[in-house]
């Protein structure tokens, strides 16, 4: 136990120097400099200290006792679970990281839980390394079992809990800790959607950030602005831009002393992700990409040199983009072109990069078809698709979505893109897609949805209300013949504007989903998810 004693002495020393350090910390925060991890922990500790002093007085001996307990727990766990692996670095890491944290925590159980969790993560990581090295069945099965049985109930994402003041407070606190500006809602929200955020494009989230921003990497700031102003739109575009920005972040990253790249980089990414989700709620594809990256980062072995680790991560991001997006679209085009025959009249909605790619490929392969592009206010994304197709030389017709019943008798097939495919078979896509599928079904026109597998997500949803995105309501205002009827909609008490971004299409409207794994019916999405999970 010499180790733990040494640690105890260390932490006591820390506590005596605390006041001095605290002042430094407060100073640093006021100047807007990024707080190191230790400084942040100091701040947290100080706050908790104040709270605790108000309630009851716990003596130092209790703290020492709990520290001992925690440090006893940590080495014992790895000892039991991974006998053959590098037990030495593991308990050192565990106790080193948890002793400054465990010290002076008023709640015993919290510290214990944290220590347990840390230990568990370390053992999982160690066992995975072991798997790569030798492959020990018994040990590998245990870590696999632990995440399953200890998986907590999934927390509700914050962006659909806007009507809950407690959740809002929690978010505000978290953002304050991460030094990310909180974006305020704008305008009157329709009562059915009071649980969602509604931002205005005229109030960008960067207004409260000082220039130059030192807390958030500048490429992330730029990316967030591009999202919030709608400059980068579309599921694939946003994911690719995100991954490129992360590449830049990793390039500029340098491991601070006494920190591990695998853990510190993940923690660095959290405020960036909070900032981006303040700019615009993350899409399902972005969520999957982030999960993948975080996993890759935490899988970096600790003895890997920084340059090597960075290079590996960059390669990993490149290969993700290549496999999941570029090659996937090639595969989907190959399948989809089989479905396009000569003389077809194909209807597309809005601007889906994948569907545009398919049509351009089909045109190059000398298929004879013409395209009808359906568009809708207020985004009018169809015009972009129209430009791309016309540039290729494809014959196009353009209508608004209200003319759908007029144009559908001419159509032979409908190709739709998707934002995400939900686990119950519903297709989440741009608002208006479900309408097109509905009317196409009424006219007996086949509806084909094209979607890469990285957009599949485990959520389930049955209507377009519970989880959606509200865009800037001012987009609906239009001036016709010199008159703008909705100009002063804010002043009118009983008027609301609703600018939805997504809607869900029930699976009975969709005839086929074309993915890079093949052509599947809508209801096979959970099968694909399971297969993916098993692979990983």
């Amino acid at each position: 136990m010499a180790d733990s004693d040494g640690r105890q002495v260390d932490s006591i020393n820390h506590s005596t120097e605390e006041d001095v350090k605290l002042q430094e910390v407060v100073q640093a925060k006021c100047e807007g400099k990024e707080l190191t991890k230790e400084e942040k922990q100091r701040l947290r500790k100080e706050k908790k200290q104040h709270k605790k002093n108000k309630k009851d007085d716990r003596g130092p001996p209790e703290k020492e006792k709990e520290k001992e307990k925690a440090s006893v727990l940590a080495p014992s766990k790895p000892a039991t679970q991974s006998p053959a692996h590098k037990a030495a670095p593991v308990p050192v890491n565990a106790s080193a990281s948890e002793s400054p944290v465990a010290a002076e925590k008023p709640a015993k159980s919290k510290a214990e839980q944290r220590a347990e969790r840390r230990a568990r993560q370390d053992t999982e990581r160690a066992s995975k390394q072991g798997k790569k090295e030798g492959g020990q069945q018994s040990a590998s099965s245990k870590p696999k079992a632990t995440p399953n049985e200890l998986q907590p109930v999934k927390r509700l994402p914050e962006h659909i809990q806007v009507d809950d003041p407690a959740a809002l407070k929690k978010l505000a606190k978290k953002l304050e800790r991460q030094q990310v500006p909180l974006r305020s809602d704008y305008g009157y929200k329709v009562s059915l959607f009071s649980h969602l955020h509604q931002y205005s494009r005229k109030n960008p989230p960067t207004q409260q950030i000082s220039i130059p921003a030192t807390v958030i990497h500048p490429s992330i700031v730029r990316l967030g602005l591009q999202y919030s102003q709608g400059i980068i739109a579309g599921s694939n575009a946003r994911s690719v831009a995100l991954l490129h920005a992360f590449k830049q972040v990793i390039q500029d990253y340098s491991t601070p002393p006494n920190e591990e790249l695998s853990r510190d980089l993940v923690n660095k990414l959290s405020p960036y992700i909070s900032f981006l989700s303040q700019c615009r709620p993350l899409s399902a594809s972005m969520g999957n990409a982030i999960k993948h990256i975080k996993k890759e980062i935490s899988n970096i072995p600790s003895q890997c040199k920084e340059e090597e680790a960075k290079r590996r991560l960059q390669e990993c991001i490149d290969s993700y983009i290549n496999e999941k997006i570029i090659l996937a679209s090639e595969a989907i085009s190959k399948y989809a072109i089989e479905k396009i025959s000569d003389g077809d009249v194909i209807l597309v909605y809005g601007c889906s990069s994948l569907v545009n790619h398919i049509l351009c490929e089909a045109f190059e392969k000398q298929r004879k078809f013409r395209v009808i592009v359906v568009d809708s206010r207020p985004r009018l994304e169809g015009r972009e698709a129209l430009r791309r197709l016309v540039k290729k030389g494809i014959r196009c017709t353009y209508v608004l979505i209200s003319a759908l019943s007029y144009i559908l008798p001419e159509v032979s097939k409908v190709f739709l893109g998707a934002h995400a495919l939900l686990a119950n078979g519903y297709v989440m896509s741009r608002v208006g897609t479900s309408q097109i599928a509905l009317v196409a079904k009424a006219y007996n026109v086949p509806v084909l949805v094209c979607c890469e597998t990285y957009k599949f997500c485990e959520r389930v949803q049955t209507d377009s209300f519970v989880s959606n995105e509200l865009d800037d309501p001012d987009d609906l205002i239009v001036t016709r013949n010199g008159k703008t009827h909705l100009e002063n909609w804010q002043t009118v008490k009983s008027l609301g504007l609703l600018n939805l971004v997504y809607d869900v299409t029930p699976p009975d409207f969709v005839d086929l989903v074309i993915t890079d794994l093949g052509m599947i019916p809508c209801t096979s999405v959970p099968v694909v998810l399971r297969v993916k999970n098993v692979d990983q």
Partner: protein
Amino acid sequence: MPGADKETDLSERIESFLSELKRCGRGAGSLRDSAETARETTALLRRITAQARWGNAGELMEIIRKEGRRMTAAQPSETTVGNMVRRVLKIIREEYARSRGSSEETDQQESLHKLLTSGGSSEDNFRQHFAHLKANVIEAINELLTELEGTTDNISMQALEHIHSNEVIMTIGRSRTVEAFLKDAARKRKFHVIVAECAPFCQGHEMATSLCKEDIETTVIPDAAIFAVMSRVNKVIIGTQTVLANGGLRAVNGTHTLALAAKHHSTPLIVCAPMFKLSPQFPNEEDTFHKFVSPHEVLPFTEGEILSKVNAHCPVFDYVPPELITLFISNIGGNAPSYIYRLMSELYHPEDHELYTGK
């Protein structure tokens, strides 16, 4: 000569009316108020009856049919004009028959029987001269005018029977009838209205601002969100441009999508249409149906470089089949779409259905 003056005055009025009809059609989708058109047409027909020279009912009907043909040719999509012409023709027939003393009822019913038995008996019927025919006809047309003026009120009076409190009602575009209907219900009940804006003319915006003035909770949604929002809607109440003989509708574009979404969610679709919108036309192929306006509403000229290579369409109307409609509310009460054919036979004489086959 006073007679000549009257005639020139009359033809002037007719010409101005025709040119106005032609002009409004070219305007960017600002559909003229149908009630106004109906009133003006009827007033004009009354003037023709009063001022034109005719000896017997047959001549009068011929004159009216001729003018009617010109008016419908000026603006084929404005069907109220033709409807009013047919109503007046029916009035003339009725008044003639009354003057002659024969009962009208037997002539209307059992048209199949009539087909087999009478046949040519109606040919020379309208040649008799009656002194009071003119006065009677003008009086009947005045009654028709009063009826026209009261249609909107009659329809709004029925509002409370159909709207309960805390309902969510959906509508599309702008219909003065529906506006009056909802405003009347709002005096006593509290409900929420969702208006689909109906691009590209966005008349839904006007409707929403007008409803807000009466403190009705209104939300404006883009057309693309109709299906997304439909699951929370209790009733769909719409107006229409024309009610066709089979019970179908010719309404603003986007109405068919709205009707399909309502059917999918089993939401009742209620159409508020006064009787003068009922037209004896049947729907034929959609192509002969549609009225288009300039595609620059859809794809503006600022998109110059792709404009020449792209076909853009901007249809104004949509056909809604009668299976999707639950109820018609008109100034004579509520009816199912399957009953429309009967109402039509009461309003128009079968021989007047085609104005073009005049003698």
